[in-house]
């Protein structure tokens, strides 16, 4: 029998964070991870994470995990056991796990369960044909094993996962024929939607899949439009050709282990379905049993890291009383509340209020300024007008255009302007506002925005030439003096321009910053370039 103070099950961001917090508080910790490496979902995330800079947002998921691995490795009292699957949590406090062909037994004083989530499935005709994938499988093949799962992919679901995996598929050289969404609005963050729209990927709201075509593999799909009541509109079917269908229709918390332990659950769709009941310190109804991360509610890595820390501290407080951990616990709770305080946190807030029985929080004030954007992923002229400087300022110096119109909990931009020209946030859900008196148009912020929503425009010169600087994350990289295609917000080619500079040092970390000379009339239309393939 192995003994320890704290057993942490699951080595994703939540579990690692719990192990680190408890380890720093002096607990002897054993961290179990089923896979051969730590990281959970982060091991597949090649994009820059949105979220809070304090929780490492702005860097790529794969980089965040390297960082966390280093931190946890430095703690001598935290033992990490990889390729180890937790099998059971028994009433007498003993847990079992499978490691190297042996079922081992562990008797900890407390347990943090952070097993994450699993993907939802969708019933439609022929949904067992080869070529029907979950988004997680697509990411594993593509980003871990370097295998392209298909050439022409239809994405089902426009949440952040559907949008981000679509983007990654294009980076890997595949074509995404469209993203369909049953709801009338795009589910994920609009910056991610805009990012794929300007690559020419259509998004179909109010649309679902009826069937996959094919004999022994997927060759296409039949789609159908939905009305406001989510009923199929007769005669509105249409078909697409594709060789894979990728399901990104949401996640359910992975509660199996908790179900064994006497933990109580509540069905709260806003949090991902059947979720464990827990208090604000991440403690369940079972003594000495804590939870964190996607298992507690489907959210983001920033929340998972904070909840993990909270669970680790709660366990430490219980096992080793007398340490002053409360101050930090309160800080983490405040940070979590702030993270969930904006319009996109409304779902989570309402879910949490069902969990705790608290009165429903007051809804955030609604604006319809982004209604059109949330159907199309394309900013309207009115959206744009709100973020541009006046005509006089446009002529004096280059300037940044931040096309971030939706309040999301994300703050890397504010921390990456050397001139302090992006006004400090009072709330992580604030919209970035550029102080054009301070902005020099230097472009330092461009590569740090996880939404790739920042551009700089230089229209100071006389004549019809102007310059746009934008982020570029595809191969091949353009070279100086090369002529490239100019794409607008919908991916339509609106002209050609000449590349004037390509910034691609380790500091950019593969988000190449490209400056292109274009016609002055196009500066507010061009938001993407395409390298013209030489045949």
């Amino acid at each position, binding site marked *: 029998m192995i003994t320890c103070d704290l057993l942490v099950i699951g080595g994703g961001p939540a579990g690692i964070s719990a192990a680190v917090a408890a380890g720093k508080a002096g607990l002897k910790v054993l961290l179990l991870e089923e896979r051969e490496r730590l990281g959970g979902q982060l091991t597949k995330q090649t994009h820059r994470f949105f979220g809070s800079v304090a929780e490492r947002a702005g860097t790529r998921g794969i980089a965040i995990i390297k960082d966390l691995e280093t931190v946890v490795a430095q703690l001598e009292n935290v033992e990490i056991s990889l390729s180890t699957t937790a099998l059971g949590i028994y009433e007498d406090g003993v847990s079992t796990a499978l490691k190297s062909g042996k079922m081992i037994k562990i008797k900890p004083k407390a347990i943090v369960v952070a097993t994450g989530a699993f993907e939802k499935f969708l019933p439609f005709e*022929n949904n067992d044909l080869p070529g029907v994938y979950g988004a997680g499988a697509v990411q594993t093949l593509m980003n871990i094993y370097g295998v392209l799962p298909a050439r022409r992919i239809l994405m089902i679901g426009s949440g952040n996962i559907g949008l981000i995996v679509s983007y990654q598929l294009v980076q890997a050289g595949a074509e995404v024929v469209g993203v369909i969404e049953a709801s009338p609005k795009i589910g994920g963050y609009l910056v991610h939607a805009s990012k794929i729209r300007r690559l020419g990927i259509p998004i179909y709201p109010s649309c679902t899949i009826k069937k996959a075509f094919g004999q022994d593999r997927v060759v296409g799909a039949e789609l159908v439009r939905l009305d406001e009541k989510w009923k199929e509109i007769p005669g509105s079917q249409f078909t697409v050709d594709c060789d894979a269908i990728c399901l990104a229709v949401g996640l359910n918390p992975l509660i199996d282990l908790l179900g064994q332990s006497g933990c109580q659950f509540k069905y709260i769709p806003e949090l991902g*379905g059947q979720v464990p009941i827990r208090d604000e310190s991440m403690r369940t109804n079972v003594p000495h049993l804590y939870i964190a991360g996607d298992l507690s509610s489907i959210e983001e890595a920033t929340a998972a890291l904070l909840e993990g820390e909270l669970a680790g501290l709660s366990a430490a407080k219980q096992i080793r009383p007398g340490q002053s951990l409360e101050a930090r616990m309160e800080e983490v709770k405040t940070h979590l509340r702030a993270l969930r305080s904006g319009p996109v946190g409304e779902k989570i807030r309402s879910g949490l209020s069902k969990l705790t029985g608290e009165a429903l929080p007051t809804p955030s004030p609604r604006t319809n300024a982004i209604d059109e954007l949330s159907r199309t992923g394309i900013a309207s002229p009115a959206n744009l007008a709100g973020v541009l400087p006046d005509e006089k300022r446009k002529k004096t110096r280059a300037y940044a255009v931040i096309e971030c119109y939706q309040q999301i909990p994300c703050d890397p931009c504010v921390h990456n302007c050397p001139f302090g020209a992006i006004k400090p946030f009072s709330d992580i859900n604030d919209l970035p506002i550029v102080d054009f008196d301070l902005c020099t148009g230097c472009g330092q912020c461009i590569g740090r925005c996880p939404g790739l929503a920042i551009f700089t425009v230089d229209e100071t010169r006389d004549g019809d030439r102007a310059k746009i600087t934008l982020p570029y994350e595809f191969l091949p990289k353009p070279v100086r003096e090369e002529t490239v295609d100019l794409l607008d917000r919908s991916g339509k080619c609106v002209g050609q321009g000449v590349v004037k500079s390509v910034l691609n040092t380790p500091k950019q970390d593969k988000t190449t910053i490209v400056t292109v000379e274009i016609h002055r009339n196009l500066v507010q239309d061009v938001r993407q370039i395409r390298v013209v393939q030489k045949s």
Partner: protein
Amino acid sequence: MNDDKTIVCRCEDIDIETIRKLIDQGVTSLEEIKRITRCGMGPCQGKTCGPVIAREIAMKTGQPMEEILSPRSRPPFGGVLFQEVLEGIDDEE
């Protein structure tokens, strides 16, 4: 929709038509459907089909999802060989 080509349980290859017929016959709990069809008894242990079947039951009977989805599960999580259990016992004494 061709219900017999719409798969609900990938592990045991059960289609939605089978499930709907059972519900219409009055078999309206996950446990009973599992015992009749083997839905949920494959490698994924009902993680894929459970929520889908629960929704079917909810739509047809009006029962709340919370009552349909039983969170109770028994160890072990996933499959374990007897040999693996025995190897662990050897370690103890």
